[in-house]
């Protein structure tokens, strides 16, 4: 599972990095005479409603997906880790405030809050990144807070404190590392979540705006042609499903590797 997931993600990353450079096709070039043309030897995935090559756009869309995934996951992980560690380590009113904010954010199911935020801020890639981060950090904070609550009672942590180590040093060198395997798993699965999140918002017309190729925007464009040109829907969706499956395989595999009890269960 780990290897399969790793291979899928690595291939997708290579395609995102090198694809647009290697392909002779341009995802923005329009050939209106051939609009909605079915897949052929010349255009493997066919052409879209404006006569643009779908393969070139899928490859360019992969860049957006990775950009969103990496940005949202890294910012969310750092923010969530810091806030979760602070809440768990210091407790008291800091923990109360951070925990109540987490409770409120968790009261909005799934992407709902992200939809609401982008709805008021306006559709753009920057706002998508912001909205997905607002809902993304919560899971890291909860995870790290729980781990820190346990870890701060460990003897080696108390020994470090007794030896005069500062708070930041104790947190950074002794407490947070106990949570890092779980953070890595969460981040891998979070990549899948962020990619689906961006695609969902773009599908609803709230994300990346045309003509920038995003898989969600491409699927949204394909809705009007589902009867006469289903390839507009099939290929971008397949790309999302494969990449998300890759990250899910990777996350599950990592979890099994880190905690073998999960595998037995």
């Amino acid at each position: 599972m780990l290897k399969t997931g790793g291979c899928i993600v690595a291939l997708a990353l290579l395609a995102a990095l090198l694809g647009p450079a290697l392909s002779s096709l341009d995802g923005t070039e329009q050939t209106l005479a051939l609009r909605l043309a079915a897949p052929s030897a010349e255009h493997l995935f066919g052409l879209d409603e404006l006569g643009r090559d779908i393969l070139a756009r899928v490859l360019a869309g992969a860049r957006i997906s990775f950009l969103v995934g990496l940005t949202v996951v890294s910012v969310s992980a750092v923010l969530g880790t810091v806030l979760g560690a602070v809440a768990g380590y210091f407790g008291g009113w800091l923990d109360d405030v951070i925990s109540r904010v987490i409770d409120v954010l968790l009261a909005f199911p799934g992407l709902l809050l992200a939809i609401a935020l982008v709805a008021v801020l306006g559709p753009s890639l920057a706002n998508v990144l912001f909205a997905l981060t607002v809902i993304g950090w919560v899971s890291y904070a909860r995870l790290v807070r729980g781990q820190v609550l346990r870890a701060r009672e460990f003897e080696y942590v108390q020994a470090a404190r007794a030896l005069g180590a500062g708070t930041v040093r104790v947190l950074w060198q002794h407490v947070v590392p106990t949570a890092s395997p779980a953070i890595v798993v969460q981040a891998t699965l979070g990549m899948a979540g962020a990619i689906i999140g961006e695609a969902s918002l773009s599908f609803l017309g709230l994300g990346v705006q045309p003509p920038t190729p995003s898989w969600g925007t491409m699927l949204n464009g394909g809705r009007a042609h589902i009867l006469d040109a289903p390839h507009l829907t099939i290929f971008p969706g397949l790309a999302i499903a494969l990449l998300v499956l890759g990250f899910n395989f990777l996350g599950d595999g990592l979890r099994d590797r880190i905690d073998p009890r999960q595998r037995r269960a």
Partner: protein
Amino acid sequence: MLRFLARRLTLTLPVLLGVATLVFSLVHLVPGDPVQAMLGESASPQDIAALRGKLGLDRPLYQQYAAFMTGAVTGDLGTSLRTNQPVVRAIAERMPATVELALAAMLVATLIAIPLGIVAAVKAGTAVDHGATTLALLGVSMPNFWMGPLLAILLSVELGWFPVSGRGTAAHLVLPAITLGAPLAAVLARLTRASVLEELRELYVVAARARGVSRARAVLAHAFRNSLIPVVTVFGLLFGSVLTGAVITETIFAWPGVGRLLVQSIAARDFPAVQGCILLIAVTYVAVNLAIDLLYGVLDPRVRYE
């Protein structure tokens, strides 16, 4: 049980207050003038002033907040700018469609997931188990805004079995329910597998088998019944996915529910309706989770004394 109920309610009230506050602040996050954003660039100053007064945005912030909270408690969420209809009435009209879709999706998820999870657990480690686990991961990975159109292409366009959009007959419900239910089935199947597998290892199941109880009866009557407790809890979380998934599924299949109302309201910059839909969906989610929490307390009395 009463003390347990009171404790859970006490924990829920601050969350609801926080949710309402966040929803209230949404309109103030709009870059620039929210009234200008709602009416568009070409709106006259008179129209802008009139709407600002109508929405109460010309009053001090604390008065706006008090009015919003009072309205939220008394069921007055303002008037839709798009339809001029009270937001609560617009939502109430759409609610039955969303509830119908959500229940059908949960039914689809249960019908697929429970047998799949049990079979995977009973055949743990075999090809059947790996197949079921991979199928479940595939289900989680397929976004519903892709699965929906694919089902429509296959079952509506190619085979002509079901209508491609709208609401009316039971046939209209099939594709949206599968689209919304399949990813839930994947999550539920994985959980059912893990939960049944854990119970199968318990001594009481081994003892039942030693007493001569058949394998099927040991699984269904003993292990499965007890493994339901964590599964029921996850239904609460899954309900959140149903609510968010409904926004997309209703858009794909032109299903006239609250999710579609939300998307239409966003497109029209109808912020009172957007706020109303968001608040209602979040409050429903909190209420369902509270109900599941209470049900969990009934199913497993240990929870009440934690």
